[in-house]
């Protein structure tokens, strides 16, 4: 494509147009189409190249057809995946887990919160690292809250410890719950 005698002026122009028309197409498809059509125009003089170009048609049409067909390939590949991967994912479970985790701490002390942790561990639509990070964050917040309560106990500012004990798990678990809801279904089931 670099030497002028291998490609006539119309051929060079056509291949350049084709290349830019295919700018948005997948790289391997772009390479295949341009290489193949460059081969067709290789060594033809201006008249012969113009005739071949007329038969090939508008480079934008070729690019549009190639992209449309490639999308169909992609759709077929996606269609081969298990149905549950493509289905819209219900957020009911992560919402329930977030509520149990957050409200459980207060409504059924310790036990409700532990149920929330178990729900996180059992959620198959979270990536393992999402589950670990959520449990670690929630447990860390609980430890900080308990520590605050113990450290300030019996001092003048015991009320600070009590407030931290009440508020830190709430804030942490609200954040963890939001994170869990966003992450739900993003990873393939384990």
């Amino acid at each position: 494509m670099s030497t002028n005698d291998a490609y006539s002026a119309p051929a060079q122009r056509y291949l350049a147009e084709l290349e830019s028309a295919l700018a948005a197409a997948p790289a391997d498809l772009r390479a295949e189409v341009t290489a193949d059509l460059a081969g067709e125009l290789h060594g033809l003089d201006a008249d012969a190249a113009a005739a071949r170009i007329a038969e090939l048609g508008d480079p934008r049409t070729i690019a549009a057809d190639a992209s449309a067909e490639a999308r169909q390939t992609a759709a077929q590949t996606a269609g081969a995946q298990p149905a549950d991967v493509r289905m819209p994912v219900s957020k009911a479970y992560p919402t329930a887990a977030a509520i149990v985790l957050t409200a459980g701490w207060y409504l059924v002390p310790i036990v409700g919160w532990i149920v929330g942790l178990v729900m996180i561990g059992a959620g198959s639509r979270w990536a393992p690292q999402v589950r670990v990070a959520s449990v670690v964050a929630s447990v860390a917040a609980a430890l900080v809250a308990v520590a605050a309560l113990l450290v300030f106990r019996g001092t003048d500012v015991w009320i600070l410890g009590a407030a931290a004990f009440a508020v830190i798990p709430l804030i942490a678990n609200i954040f963890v719950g939001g994170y869990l809801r966003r992450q739900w279904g993003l990873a393939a089931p384990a």
Partner: protein
Amino acid sequence: MQHMLLCMANDVGTQLRKGVVEYCVLGLLQSAPTYGWKLSERLVSLGLIGSIGTLYPLLGRLRDQGLIIAQADTSDSARPRKYYSLTPDGREQLRQFRAQWQPFSAAVSTIIAVDESRSPGTDASAIPVKGTDS
């Protein structure tokens, strides 16, 4: 309205082609290995694809499925071309399609054939329809 019908007709054509163009490519390759441009020339002239652009992803799909293989032919040094040929799997796939296609197209043709007995002028009551005759 006419425009809508036209779009629908186009869409039917597109839907029909989608299912069979791949087998037409297999059919074109059954006698001899062929290169892309030659395949596209045939398919475009028969109205089976719009342009050569459609052909490349389609060939890629057939290759990924192991139905065809691509080989570089360097005998013409001025124009080294990629020739596609059928694999044994491709041959088998084509055989299966051929066996299905004939009865399928015959069945569809029978069903959608213009019904002479219902055309205007002939007596519609020749075939009584339940509930309409009082």
